[in-house]
């Protein structure tokens, strides 16, 4: 028999307990609610949040501990050796039912006009524990209905259950201390301190953690009913932190972004800035078809594939030193590899440049999540450069464009233009090439519009400029890939959905430029799988989908 590897350090010995009959081992100091959450056991709760301090005020997470006549709250009770816990007995159910009733007696029950409906903690728990007729015959407490807390969040005090999650968030996480609970008893209301507004870079997290419809996002409210939205996990491409997020979408496009827990990256939170990424992914902002400027006029509505093949012809006939490629830190690792492979091996050029927005200070960091490098994959780009032995300086590009040494310039432009303040200036530089191929997922007003400014800049470049080709690119939501974040952590994400069917990924472009045709093999299995069908754990049984499917998801957090 092999000797068992018993732990020598007593303090590290796990504690044995049983929860609802399941024998578990937990680390010393674990609370019951944490143990239940870690082991996929359902427990009703409102005020407890794993990323915040323990408030113990909603009194909903009741459990029965063998040997204790009174039900206890799970959030402030630490598991001890041999503890027998259950939260499925009639006693617990009755306690939760009453706990819920106290939450509901003054609740306005305005679900039909409430934005939280469908993902509301009160609705979820009512379906689980309630389903009774209210005995409250008295008049409900009236409170303020539409309180403008700041630029991002609206408060409805009547819906508020005073769980204090939002005040704890501003005190403990954002440390901005804007929110407080004012007045006493059932007159208590959330509010901001004198003259202050809820205005910080993380304010919308309060909306995420609000278990009811009290705090709603000004950006999202009334846009969509949540049950018409699908949810899918991806990475935020707003900065080099690479927060894990869930995006919510339907065939009309994306509607909102919420953080997804990752202890290595963003914990439970994300910044407000990252929540705007859906705006440049949606169709309204996108370049839908290829366009070409040739012989002093624009030709539009060109199929992207046709345009890309034309570009391939152009590049094929060019001298290696005449071809150059410009990349930003906004594409995936896989795209960089494919593009560099094409340019280095097929076109035999190492004229590959890194477009770095001048404003960005890579080292800037706000201490929580926001980083100065607003590109999700600068590290990935630099890694690929190293792999292919690319060592170029931006001034060389400027010089070679001016001297006419570089004639065919391919630019894979950034997706998130808001952080590229130098766009206009850079484009007038690019227009010094003979043939500019600009690949972009978003509309580029600087190139496309018929405004005078554009005509002027085209006029100026007219002596040398022969063609401008605009190619539509897939946004990162529409492709699978890998981002390498600021600390070198490679995070692979799956395709969420397709919004612009004609747009091409960097990998597809690399193939087309190299003269290959797009075979189905390019579309790897991973590209076809959407995160919705592969990672949603709540679709485990039919039973769950029959019920309110949000119960399962939200019951765990």
């Amino acid at each position: 028999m092999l000797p068992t590897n018993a732990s020598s350090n007593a303090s590290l010995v796990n504690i044995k307990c049983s929860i609802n009959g399941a024998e578990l081992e937990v680390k010393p100091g674990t609370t019951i609610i944490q143990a239940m959450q870690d082991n996929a056991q359902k427990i009703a709760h409102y005020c407890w949040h794993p990323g915040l301090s323990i408030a113990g005020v909603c009194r909903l997470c009741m459990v029965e501990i063998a040997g204790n006549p009174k039900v206890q709250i799970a959030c402030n009770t630490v598991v001890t050796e041999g503890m027998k816990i259950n939260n499925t007995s009639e006693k617990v159910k009755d306690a939760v039912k009453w706990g819920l009733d106290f939450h509901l007696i003054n609740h306005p029950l305005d679900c039909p006009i409430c934005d939280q409906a469908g993902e509301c903690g009160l609705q979820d728990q009512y379906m689980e524990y309630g389903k009774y007729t209210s005995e409250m015959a008295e008049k409900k407490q009236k409170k303020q209905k539409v309180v403008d807390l700041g630029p991002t969040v609206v408060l409805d005090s009547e819906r508020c259950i005073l769980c204090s999650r939002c005040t704890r968030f501003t005190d403990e996480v954002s440390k901005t201390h804007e929110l407080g609970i004012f007045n006493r008893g059932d007159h208590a209301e959330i509010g901001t301190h004198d003259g202050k507004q809820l205005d910080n870079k993380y304010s919308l997290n309060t909306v995420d953690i609000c278990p009811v419809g009290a705090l709603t996002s000004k950006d999202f409210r009334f846009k969509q009913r949540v049950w018409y939205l699908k949810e899918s996990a991806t990475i935020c491409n707003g900065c080099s932190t690479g927060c894990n997020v869930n995006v919510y979408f339907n065939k009309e496009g994306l509607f909102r972004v919420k953080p997804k827990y990752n202890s290595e990256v963003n914990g439970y939170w994300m910044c407000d800035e990252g929540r705007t990424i859906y705006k440049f992914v949606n169709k309204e902002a996108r370049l839908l078809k290829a366009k070409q400027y040739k012989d002093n006029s624009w030709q539009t509505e060109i199929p992207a594939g046709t345009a890309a093949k034309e570009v391939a012809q152009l590049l094929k006939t060019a001298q290696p030193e005449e071809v150059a490629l410009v990349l930003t830190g906004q594409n995936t690792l896989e795209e960089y590899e494919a593009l560099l492979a094409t340019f280095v091996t097929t076109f035999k050029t190492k004229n590959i440049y890194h477009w770095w927005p001048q404003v960005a200070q890579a080292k800037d960091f706000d201490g929580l999540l926001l980083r100065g490098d607003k590109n999700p994959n600068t590290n990935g780009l630099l890694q690929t450069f190293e792999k292919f032995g690319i060592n170029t300086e931006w001034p060389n590009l400027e010089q070679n464009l001016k001297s006419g040494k570089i004639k065919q310039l391919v630019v894979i432009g950034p997706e998130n233009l808001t952080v590229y303040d130098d766009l206009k200036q850079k484009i007038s530089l690019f227009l010094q090439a003979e043939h500019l191929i600009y690949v972009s997922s978003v509309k580029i007003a600087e190139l496309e519009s018929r405004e005078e400014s554009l005509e002027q800049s085209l006029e100026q470049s007219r002596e040398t400029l022969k063609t401008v080709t605009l190619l539509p690119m897939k946004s990162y939501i529409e492709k699978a890939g890998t981002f390498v974040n600021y600390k070198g952590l490679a995070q692979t994400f799956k395709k969420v959905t397709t919004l612009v069917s004609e747009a091409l990924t960097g990998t597809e472009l690399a193939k087309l430029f190299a003269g290959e045709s797009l075979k189905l093999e390019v579309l790897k299995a991973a590209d076809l799988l959407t995160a919705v069908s592969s990672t949603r754990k709540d679709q485990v049984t039919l039973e769950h989908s029959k019920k309110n499917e949000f119960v399962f998801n939200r019951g765990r957090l």
Partner: protein
Amino acid sequence: MQTLDLTEETKYLTKETKYLSEFYHLPEFKGLAGYKNKGGYQDLEKALKMPPQAIIDEVKASGLRGRGGAGFSTGMKWGFLPKNNEPRYLLCNADEGEPGTFKDRMMMEKAPHQLIEGMIISAFAINSKKSYIYVRGEYDESIDALEAALQEAYKAGYLGKNILGSGFDHDMDVYRGAGAYICGEETGMISSLEGLKGQPKLKPPFPAIQGYLKKPTIVNNVETLAVVKYIIRDGAAHYRTLGTEKSAGTKLFSLSGNIAKPGNYEVPLGYALKDMIYGMGGGFKNNKQLKAVIPGGSSAPVLNAAESMKATLDYENLAQMGSMLGSGAIIVIDDSQCMVQCLANLMHFYHHESCGQCTPCREGTGWLDKISHSILSGHGRRQDIELLLKVADNMKGKTICALSDAAALPVISFVTKFRDEFEYFVNEGKSKVKGTAFKGAPHASH
């Protein structure tokens, strides 16, 4: 129901045992000179020569139980402090807010030095260098008396550095509350003292481990701390001769309500409630009769007349009767009172004073207030009586502090013991007690 025959008055005990309040009648007892004349600060001198642990042991042996309401053993509470040199605080809870209670006020106004001396001895015992007296905001005279006494004590060297050459340093301050009932709850008081909203803190950790400014803290009532001086003076053995086995010593009782002679009375624990009412309190005026007694402040379950005649004023007997000694506030209710109205009045108080932190209390107190006022206004439904009981039952023991229980327990006792009055009101739309027609009374509001 016990009828009172005035000729029988002599049958009831009328003797007070003035142990703490021996010199309260002397105006000069308030000042340092007068206090010292009557043996003031001698016990401090004695205590400073004792090992601190010996003081704790003596208090433990005396059987002294907290006089603020919970009745927890004082010596045991002190024993929970960590055995190290971490700074710790002693807080005196003088936020006397329990309806019916007015004993601490008298103590602070008549004998501020008594409290200060008791506190210095207690602080020495638990090795605390700083203490605060948290006084209810409305108690102007108490605050003035304490401030003046503190100045005198500092001048005389009873406070400050190296007290009476013992090497023990101690500073004491008065902190003025703002009149919230919840700040009388010890962790609510700590929050308030820290400058936060007066809301009780989640336990564990208990204040003895992590209290004021996250340091070990002991919170004791005014009367408790004052008694410590006398335990040092007379010894634990003598203190135990007063009162009963499990409820040692004397206690100040605040007698109020429909009684001929309301006031503060000091008696040994175990004293009969009927003696308090008919003896000390002088019975009822205008031939009214005893209907009910709230024996320990408004949170204590009510006793009916028969129970009141049997009850003795000590922790164990009242607990046995399903009520509690609480802060020792005896509210006497005669037969001219409507119990529905009494309960509605109490519920208004708890609704107003709930801090709003825990949902069952925040919503439940308001609900109880609304239901009881709805009955009082003549619009009660038959099911409201059961609903009162159900709501109260589900508020009990479900919250961070005891305010929820304090609201729930009176409801349960009022409705079960005087159910006839509630049913009459619901059925007839008016009070069973003549002359207290409250039809159309305003709805519960602030």
